[in-house]
């Protein structure tokens, strides 16, 4: 656990849902929430707060794109049933929000932040960039997408600075990966990244000596508050390692804390597992 939980569980109302490139931008009104820091997320559940068996059963973690008073915005991609149903929300519909949750990105002027986002990893970095700008902190923003059609222009237009855009199809911004743009000698900064696993792995390879690096990770979640132990990643503890929860000790981790564990965990005594 890292610190007290500042989250609340509240009913939210859908204010607007609109397409933005490949994504959906969902604006919700939900009073009574603590303010969010960039990197924080909400667990979002469909339906009224009174539903006895919500469908889908589990809430879905979604990074905060923006949180301003009673208004929470997220930007999401449809990848399965939950996001499909969320994309069918209509203004006035009720949703359930649990949050803000998780350890956010750090915010400091030195070393200079370099925000690297890929695909659905972009939203929390949009929030971070806006906040850094508001605080007068100079920073770089590199966002990568598969295709020019994916780019969530409306969300990006709210940033105080133009992000450097990379697309694999080359029809927007620079052709190729964000990571490639960071290869070679550079001044060490503070990489703050969120995106697909392979992107994060590639980033580690272009890291400058001594460069600070924060990575926001994703895992399947049930509780979002650190007590189901469903969403773990191995982190170093001296010579050894332990599982940390992505929902509570993350989603933002210091890259130096994360370890690769080949054996992938202790072998449960049972070959087949149904023990909790």
């Amino acid at each position, binding site marked *: 656990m890292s610190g007290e939980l500042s989250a609340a569980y509240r009913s939210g109302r859908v204010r607007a849902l609109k397409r933005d490139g490949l994504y959906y931008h969902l604006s919700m009104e939900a009073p009574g929430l603590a303010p969010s820091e960039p990197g924080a997320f909400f667990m979002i559940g469909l339906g009224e707060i009174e539903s006895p068996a919500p469908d889908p059963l589990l809430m879905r973690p979604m990074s905060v794109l923006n949180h301003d008073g009673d208004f929470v915005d997220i930007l999401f991609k449809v990848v399965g049933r939950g996001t499909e149903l969320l994309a069918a929300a209509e203004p006035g519909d009720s949703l359930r929000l649990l949050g803000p949750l998780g350890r956010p990105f750090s915010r400091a002027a030195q070393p200079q932040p370099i925000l690297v986002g890929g695909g659905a990893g972009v939203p929390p970095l949009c929030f971070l960039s806006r906040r850094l700008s508001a605080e007068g902190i100079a920073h770089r923003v590199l966002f990568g997408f598969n295709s020019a059609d994916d780019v969530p222009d409306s969300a990006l237009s709210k940033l105080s600075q133009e992000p450097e855009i990379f697309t694999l199809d080359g029809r927007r911004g620079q052709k190729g990966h964000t990571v490639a743009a960071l290869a070679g000698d550079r001044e060490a900064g503070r990489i703050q990244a969120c995106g697909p696993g392979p992107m994060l792995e590639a980033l580690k390879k272009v890291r400058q000596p001594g460069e600070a690096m924060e990575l926001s990770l994703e895992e399947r979640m049930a509780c979002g508050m650190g007590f189901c132990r*469903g969403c773990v990643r191995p982190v170093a503890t001296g010579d050894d390692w332990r*599982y940390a929860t992505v929902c509570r000790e993350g989603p933002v981790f210091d890259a130096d804390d994360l370890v690769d564990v080949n054996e992938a965990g202790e072998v449960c005594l049972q070959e087949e597992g149904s023990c909790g």
Partner: protein
Amino acid sequence: MADLLVFAGGLELKNPMLAASGCFGYGLEADPVIPPSLFGGIVTKTITPAPRRGNPVPRLAETHAGMLNSIGLENVGLDAFLADKLPALEDVDSKIVVSVSAGSAGEFAEMAERLAEHARVDALELNLSCPNVAEHGRNFAADPAAVAAIGKAVRRVFARPMWIKLSPNVTDISEVARAAQDAGADAVTAINTLLGMDINIDSGKSPFARVTAGLSGPAILPVALAAVWRIAREGGIPTIGVGGASSAKGLLKFLAAGAEAVQLGTVLFSDPGAPQRILDDLATHLDAQGHTNLNSLREQWKEQA
């Protein structure tokens, strides 16, 4: 407003709603979203003698009205539990039931002895849905003799209430409940998760390293109700119901089936507002029916027999 007090498994609970083992951590993580003092009792994550890291991810999958978990009993181990987790529960206004698991009757008894030294431990719940190392990994809870042996070993060293948690993955759960009764258990907790699995149709494989996993949630409520009823109708040993309860109605179904109290598991993930709502709805239901307490409702059910 109606009084929700119950006597369950040898404990006086201010209400019949408990947090199920593994679904509320060590009791404090969800505070204040789910205040621990809401519950009549809290069953801790299962503690083992040594710490356990548990299984690799993915540890979760969603199913129709249910979920699969393959946590692998990750826990801090008994020492850390006694040093860090238990003392933090001092001021919680709920009974504390410590769930324990071990590889043999002897190990179970050793844990129980150490836990008996701590006054904050109101009861033990023996999680036997775990492999018997000596018997080639056969689940203790599938073997009445093993259940009896472990129960007796713990009973000798632990005088406060002892609950034994049963697995639904058996041919005859009442046979196992009788073994728990013979061992002197104060109650059986029914049920643990159902053996289940999921498949990724691209790889053709289970997403879980251990292949199978435990099924919980509203999907299993009918199975849990049948298990509780089958145990309760023999009249031998009290039951604590668990499995798929997600509303006051679900909780009442367990009580009608014969449970003395009911644990909430998966619903604490899917709807953290459920505990407060269930308490409110329970009281409203009793008030509306003119009952001042749960016993009065139970009597009414009996009269209609």
